[in-house]
């Protein structure tokens, strides 16, 4: 009986580890697409960003994150406003990630650790980025849904990108009385400025 129990636990342990490895492999492929885009000198800045934006939108849980960071304002909004907001947010997210990854494009990295969090059903993948002055660890939180992986958060130095965005958006939403349609205008203008900076 003990033997069968041991075999059962062993199979569970192995399958979770295989799952983590699969997540890491998928993540490495997607990170490399973004970093290669930065290294490709044949791409114009606009085309480079469009390629990166497409990769980010395909791999991040953009709609779920958008809903989370909007907080109370989400419930009060109509369908059309939500749709515009999601589009604006996805571009905003892409601009944020692209801007951050731009700084890492000439550095080497390694996916050092991958762990499956049973409680939250999330895989945590640590990415160590090496530079001349030292290294920095970025943790990717990845969730699986319908046989696909989605990045749900990025953590740098114990700072969660999603939690920071939620605080930032809440602060700005308060200034417009939690009106998502007014906030859409603010977000659209900010995206325009960020887009010009990253493509100039």
């Amino acid at each position, binding site marked *: 009986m003990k033997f069968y129990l041991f075999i059962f636990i062993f199979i569970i342990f192995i399958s979770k580890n295989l799952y983590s490895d699969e997540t890491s492999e998928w993540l490495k492929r997607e990170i490399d697409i973004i970093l290669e885009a930065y290294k490709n000198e044949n791409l114009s800045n606009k085309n480079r960003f469009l390629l990166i934006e497409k990769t980010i939108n395909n791999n991040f*849980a*953009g*709609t*779920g*994150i958008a*809903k*989370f960071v909007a907080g109370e304002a989400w419930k009060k909004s109509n369908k059309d406003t939500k749709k515009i907001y999601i589009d604006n947010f996805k571009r*905003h997210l892409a*601009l*944020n990630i692209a*801007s*951050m990854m*731009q*700084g890492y494009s000439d550095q080497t990295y390694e996916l050092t650790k991958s*762990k499956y*969090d049973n409680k*939250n059903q*999330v895989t*945590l993948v*640590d990415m160590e980025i090496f530079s001349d*002055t*030292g290294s920095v660890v970025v*943790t990717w*939180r990845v*969730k699986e*849904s319908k046989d*696909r992986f*989605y990045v*749900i*958060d990025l*953590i*740098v*130095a*114990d*700072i*969660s990108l*999603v*939690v*920071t*965005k*939620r*605080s*930032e*958006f*809440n*602060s*700005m939403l308060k200034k417009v009385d939690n009106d998502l349609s007014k906030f859409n205008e*603010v*977000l659209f203008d*900010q995206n325009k*400025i*960020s887009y010009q*900076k*990253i493509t100039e």
Partner: protein
Amino acid sequence: MMTDPINAYAVSEGEAWLVPMRTAVNAVDTRSQIIDEVNALRDNSVDYYAAVRSSYYQNRKAAINNVDDSELTPLPLISIEFE
């Protein structure tokens, strides 16, 4: 700051001017290490002050709780059913 052995030694030797000098150099060094992240945050924030405030609180909370594993950072409640 004064519990730093180098600072304590400098003060005991009558070279207290070294303390603010070291603090300033460390601040410049730390800033230079995160300059890309700070610029990225400033360029892409709808409210830069709120973003810095939130980052600071998260970082302090992790330091107080002695968190050295990102697993312990609270997980945002994100649904992926609409993706």
